[in-house]
């Protein structure tokens, strides 16, 4: 029965191979790719059903393929596993993934390299599945970098555009910075536990231990310089945090996600909303034992999450590009999840991850349908009044916006509320205030976006807006339904998810706090109405290419927000320029003149010495005789000294 779980990642991989080597035309490519991901979803559901059948403590299917690395004492098996946590993630990845594949058939219709696009998409799903199903850190890392590669390929799908190419490279490099920290963490884990496997696994008859249960062993140990010893658990978990910030676009390393919008919209929906960026949260949840072992890192995680939420939230308000609003919103919501992990509310984080995956995918696909309908305009200043032209998109988009803002019956409310409730009950007061403020901002910018896109009149009349085809609207509707009933996954009373994840995360369900829920909903409704009202009443002030009406009140701060507090420009000046300068200095000056100069200098010195010897050879016999006599005198004087 173990081989079944191999089918989940291998089906999309077969799709990838087919699209790369066999399929040449658009029609079969789309169908094969989407079909295989859907098949993988079906297999996943059956596997999870079987998993559910098992008694609670045995809910873990581990299957080892072969012995990947066996260099001396470093032994790493190539194996995958399915347990409640990864089951939930697999469902999200394959479910939302299948929908986005079908959507792409419509969206990418007529693209020059559509076959290659579907190949990359399938490869991405395979890698994401390895990430969530890996049974040791190295397989997780294989998926981790694999999705980084696919995001590079997919962002750079239209590589003719300079911006897309630059964004792709930027995404991969920034991810790589996080991955470097991840590698260091893995090295430390292996050095201290002797294994990278999460749980005990038998490989070729030999039992290899897991390290998750043995984390308490390293609580006391510390490393680092004697004058400033650092607790080992803190060191490892801090490195994992940096890795997660790289992948899940958290505060220091979030600059690549907004630029990643240069890729096709389904890619943004799948990779930069639902699946890849949540990899970091999944990793932190999986290795929560390490984080629990070091309170210092917990507070770091908390603050990183909260700050990212705030910064991204403020940045989202001032964006004009429809997708960049959603990009910053994703960063902000990820901040929520990371904050939840920081508070120890891992179930809340996963719950928010799932609901966010659904409604953010819905929003992105909705914006894709809008872009598709308005002939590739992404600037909201050129839109307006599209609710009549694109009714289905409008209604599904409204549902999604409501879910994101956290209006009561929709999914977003329940998951966000659980995080806020957990913060309140564990009195993390500063984070609670920041997160609450951010949820208000979220409601505001969603209201603003709905108003700018769907209400008022169509500002730029060069295009005739039309509704997208059924292949695009059906996924929208399915996702809208999901956004509505999504909250049911972990209602405060039923908390099905908490029980389901109990064998992995061992958390007790938090109590529902009606007062907080009321305040949050009131805030959400109020702010979204404010956003909607501001941008419908001042619709006339919004000019194509003009400034935001709010600019009058806030002035340059508004531009600061648009540039996400100039963090990107700071990196450009503080890191990228000096690096290029150093590179040029080393390559042009230090290497050719410095080291090479030394080497050639030795050569020239011998050349000069040779010239001196030839100078001595003057050609006069008497000088030769003189040198001869000098030699004689030397030898004889040595003899005299010798014989004294």
């Amino acid at each position: 029965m173990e081989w079944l779980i191999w089918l989940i990642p291998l089906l999309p991989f077969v799709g990838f191979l087919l699209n790369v080597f066999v399929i040449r035309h658009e029609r079969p490519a789309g169908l094969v790719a989407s079909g295989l991901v859907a098949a993988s979803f079906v297999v996943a559901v059956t596997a999870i059903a079987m998993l559910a059948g098992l008694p609670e403590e045995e809910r873990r299917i581990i299957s080892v393929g072969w012995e990947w690395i066996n260099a001396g004492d470093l032994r790493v098996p190539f194996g995958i596993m399915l347990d409640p946590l990864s089951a939930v993630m697999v469902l999200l990845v394959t479910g939302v993934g299948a929908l986005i594949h079908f959507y792409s058939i419509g969206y990418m219709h007529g693209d020059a390299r559509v076959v290659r696009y579907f190949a990359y998409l399938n490869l991405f799903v395979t890698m994401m599945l390895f990430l969530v199903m890996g049974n040791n850190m190295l397989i997780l890392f294989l998926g981790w970098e694999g999705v980084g590669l696919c995001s590079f390929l997919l962002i750079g799908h239209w590589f003719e555009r300079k911006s897309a190419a630059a964004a792709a490279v930027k995404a991969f490099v920034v991810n790589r910075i996080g991955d470097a920290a991840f590698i260091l963490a893995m090295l430390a884990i292996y050095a201290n536990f002797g294994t990278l496997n999460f749980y005990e696994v038998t490989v070729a008859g030999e039992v290899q231990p897991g390290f998750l249960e043995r984390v308490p062993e390293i609580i006391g140990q510390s490393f680092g310089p004697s004058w400033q010893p650092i607790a080992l658990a803190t060191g490892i978990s801090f490195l994992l945090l940096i890795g997660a910030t790289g992948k899940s676009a958290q505060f220091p390393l979030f600059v690549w996600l907004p630029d990643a919008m240069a890729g096709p919209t389904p890619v943004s929906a799948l990779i930069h909303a639902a699946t890849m960026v949540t990899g970091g949260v999944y990793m932190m949840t999986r290795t929560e034992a390490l984080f629990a072992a070091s309170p210092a890192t917990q507070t770091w995680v908390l603050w990183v999450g909260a700050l990212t939420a705030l910064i991204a939230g403020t940045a989202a308000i001032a964006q004009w590009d429809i997708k960049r609003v959603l990009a910053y919103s994703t960063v902000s919501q990820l901040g929520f999840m990371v904050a939840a992990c920081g508070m120890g509310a891992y179930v809340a984080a996963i719950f928010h991850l799932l609901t966010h995956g659904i409604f953010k995918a819905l929003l992105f696909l909705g914006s894709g349908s809008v872009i598709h309908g308005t002939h590739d305009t992404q600037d909201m200043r050129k839109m307006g009044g599209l609710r009549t032209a694109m009714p289905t998109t409008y209604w599904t988009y409204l549902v999604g916006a409501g879910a994101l803002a956290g209006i009561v019956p929709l999914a977003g409310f329940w998951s966000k509320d659980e995080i806020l409730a957990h913060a309140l009950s564990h009195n993390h007061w500063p984070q609670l205030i920041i997160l609450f403020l951010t949820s208000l901002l979220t409601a505001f910018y969603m209201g603003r976006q709905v108003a700018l896109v769907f209400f008022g009149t169509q500002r730029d009349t060069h295009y005739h807006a039309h509704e997208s085809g059924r292949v695009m609207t059906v996924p929208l509707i399915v996702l809208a339904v999901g956004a509505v009933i999504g909250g049911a996954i972990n209602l405060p009373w039923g908390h099905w998810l908490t029980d389901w994840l109990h064998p992995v995360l061992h958390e007790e369900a938090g109590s529902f706090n009606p007062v907080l829920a009321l305040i949050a909903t009131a805030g959400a409704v109020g702010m979204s109405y404010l956003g909607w009202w501001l941008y419908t009443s001042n619709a006339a002030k919004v000019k194509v290419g003009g400034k935001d009406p709010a600019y009058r009140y806030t002035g340059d701060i508004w531009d600061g927000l648009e540039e996400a507090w100039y963090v990107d420009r700071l990196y450009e000046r503080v890191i990228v320029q000096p690096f290029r300068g150093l590179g040029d200095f080393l390559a042009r000056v230090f290497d050719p003149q410095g080291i090479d100069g030394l080497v050639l200098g030795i050569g020239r010195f011998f050349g000069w010495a040779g010239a001196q010897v030839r100078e001595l050879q003057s050609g006069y016999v008497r000088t030769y005789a003189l040198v001869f006599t000098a030699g004689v005198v030397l030898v004889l004087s040595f003899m005299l000294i010798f014989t004294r």
Partner: protein
Amino acid sequence: MVPTSYYILLSAALFTIGVLGVLIRRNAIVVFMAVELMLNAANLALVAYARERLSIDGQVLVFFVITVAAAEVAVGLALLVAIFRTKRTTDVDEVSTLRG
């Protein structure tokens, strides 16, 4: 009986004069004479030691040295004539085209 050391001192003096002659004088013929002087200084020393040791070997050696000196001078003067014919000079320093 004159002690041998006087002879040796004389031969050393002769030898140094010969060496200086080669170093200082520019005319090839004088250089040859200086070399002859050095060789004869050696002969003197040989004879002095032979007398002191009353062994005939030393004196026999002198003949070898004399014959070799003669051969050398013969070839040397022949060469000098050849050079004089082409370069009309016997100055040793004139003959210095080969260098470096």
